[in-house]
């Protein structure tokens, strides 16, 4: 039990350290930018008409005069206490903006993550099992094609087909335009989320399929599968008893590692569908020099990615007997 706690603790500490480094890197990057947030947000004209005092006050607010290291620690300290600053574009606390946007995106990403994970696993297992067959070639070809297709273009094409041409699904946004918030039904929300979710799933499948396929092929060529065949086990038996068991471990890691990709994909896809989620907010923040929001989104999404990795590591410890039982011994 003690070993397990140490195992969990080690990984959790590592994750927190990484997260700290991510925020430091992100902060450095926005700090060295030649883009002046003051000018970008307040505007050259407004600055000109302000009094020296007002400008000084604003500069103090932006921390223009302070050394960057101090600014970072001030920001990080506030962030740690839950104060992520105020978004310049939305004129609201960053935490609140992220909360709303994340709520919209989480839907999308959760659906895409689950769908692409399941479908990718299934296709990968099938293709790897019948390596070289027509089925394998189709699945592999499809995956390579999708992997070579930019997510935003796929979104555009689907939009053209289903929204413009067939007119069965709405063009964008998470709710109908011009309808009061109270009037938006769940059905509306679902209708507006279908295309983004489907696009995100389709792009996610490719990678998982290809990796699962590779693993599956490796397993089918392993000594233990050879021996199982020598013992007269049927293909189905081998799949059931050995292949699935062994391919599940890397698949779990892969599935949790794909969180990063889903996040990245959602940035592009939300942009195309004007879906008001975290991804679109990141783009808006970047284009509008909304530094606090951009930093907030970076740290939050990194937290998701590292959190995913942490869960994968922990699950590995639970599933893999070599770690679960061997950990105590080693």
């Amino acid at each position, binding site marked *: 039990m003690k070993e397990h706690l140490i195992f969990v603790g080690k990984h959790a500490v590592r994750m927190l350290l990484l997260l700290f480094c991510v925020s430091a890197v992100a902060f450095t990057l926005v700090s060295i930018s030649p883009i002046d947030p003051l000018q970008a947000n307040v505007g050259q004209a407004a600055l000109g008409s302000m009094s020296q005092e007002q400008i000084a006050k604003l500069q103090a607010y932006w921390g223009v005069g302070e050394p960057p290291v101090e600014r970072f620690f001030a920001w990080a300290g506030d962030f740690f206490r839950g104060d992520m600053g105020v978004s310049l574009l939305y004129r609201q606390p960053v935490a609140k903006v992220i909360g709303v946007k994340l709520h919209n995106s989480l839907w999308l990403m959760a659906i895409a993550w689950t769908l692409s994970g399941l479908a990718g696993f299934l296709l990968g297992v099938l293709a790897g099992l019948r390596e070289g067959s027509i089925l394998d070639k189709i699945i592999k070809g499809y995956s390579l094609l999708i992997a070579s297709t930019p997510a935003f273009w796929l979104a555009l094409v689907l939009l053209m087909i289903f929204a413009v041409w067939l007119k069965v699904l709405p063009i964008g946004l998470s709710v109908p335009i011009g309808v009061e918030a109270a009037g938006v039904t769940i059905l509306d929300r679902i209708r507006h989320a279908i295309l983004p979710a489907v696009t995100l799933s389709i792009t996610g499948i490719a990678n998982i399929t290809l990796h699962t396929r590779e693993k599956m092929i490796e397993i089918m*060529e392993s*000594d*233990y599968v*050879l*021996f*199982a*065949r*020598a*013992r*007269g*086990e049927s293909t189905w*038996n081998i799949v*059931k*008893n*050995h292949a699935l*068991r*062994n391919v599940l*471990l890397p698949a779990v890691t892969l599935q949790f590692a794909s969180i990063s990709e889903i996040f990245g994909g959602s940035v592009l896809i939300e942009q195309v569908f004007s879906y008001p989620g975290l991804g679109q907010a990141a783009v808006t923040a970047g284009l509008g020099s909304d530094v606090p929001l951009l930093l907030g989104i970076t740290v939050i999404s990194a937290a998701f990615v590292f959190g995913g990795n942490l869960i994968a590591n922990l699950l590995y410890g639970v599933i*893999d*007997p*070599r770690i679960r*039982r*061997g950990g105590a011994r080693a």
Partner: protein
Amino acid sequence: MKEKKVILDIRDFSVSFEQYEKGFSKTGLPVIRNLDVTVHEGEMVAVVGSSGSGKSLLAHGILGILPYNATMGGELMFDGEPLTRKRQKALRGNEIVLVPQSVAFLDPLMKIGPQIRKGKKDRASREKLNRIFRGYHLKEEVQNLYPFELSGGMNRRVLVSTALMGNPKLVIADEPTPGLHMDMVRRVMSHFRELADQGAGVLLITHDLEQALEVADRVVVFYAGTTVEDAAASDFGSEETLRHPYSRALWRALPQNGFQFIQGVQPYVKDLPSGCPFGPRCEFCTESCKAAVPYRQVRGGRVRCVMAGREKGAEEMLQSAKEPSARLAAAGKHHTGAAERRCAPEPLVAGHEADHDKKMRSAV
């Protein structure tokens, strides 16, 4: 000795792989050819050849589990009937069983018990496994362990146990004792001897002649993908009773016989000489060795050498064997001229003796 029933009869067996030559042309790579082995009921036959000479492919061929880019040829008879693909499928794991080299051949994520039972949970197979484990002094708890948790001593007994889940008439043991301590080797070998004594045919595939001689009834000597001699284990008591120059070389390499090794290495499949594969390293090589060499009956065994059994050749061989120092000189004296020159300078490329099955498999 009364005639026992032949369980396995392999004639002119061959395995070749498709491979690219330089550039673009595809060719067959004959890793095994002219392989002949018979195993009787209750008999333990050892196929002895150096590591990486493709012996494992024999086992895989019998079981029908060669990789897809391998082609098999020759005649395989099991229990009096041709061993077709269909029969292989039906019999493997039951009447024909394989005992692998190590626990690496067990699924690392499946517990021992269910794995040996092939996932079956019924009472009969549970009881059968319990019985087998008791026979090998394995505790029932071992069934709940994963392969990585087995101790070295348990390993072997567990692997042998897998064979007994069926009703084996033929047990194929592929290098069952790699890198083991001699005591352990004896113990493992005794398990196989037991199986043979209970009536099964045992085909032991090994690189270790010493080990083989300790338990086997007959030894088949395997060189560069070909069986060169089939001898009773007792024939290895002295050099004179052996038939093939390579077998004699093996005999001389045994510790008790002076650890003398011959020069050179086994040729890589692509660089095989025509006729006898041992020709380039053989001190008695003549022009007639360059043609196809038949497998002949000589003194109750079989041999693939034109010299063996012939009065003159045999005499020469014996003579030179008695005076090791004179051996080279003798070779030079008796086989002067063209034959000698044509045989000797065959390129013996060192380091070519890569592990074939591994390479082939990894390529698939």
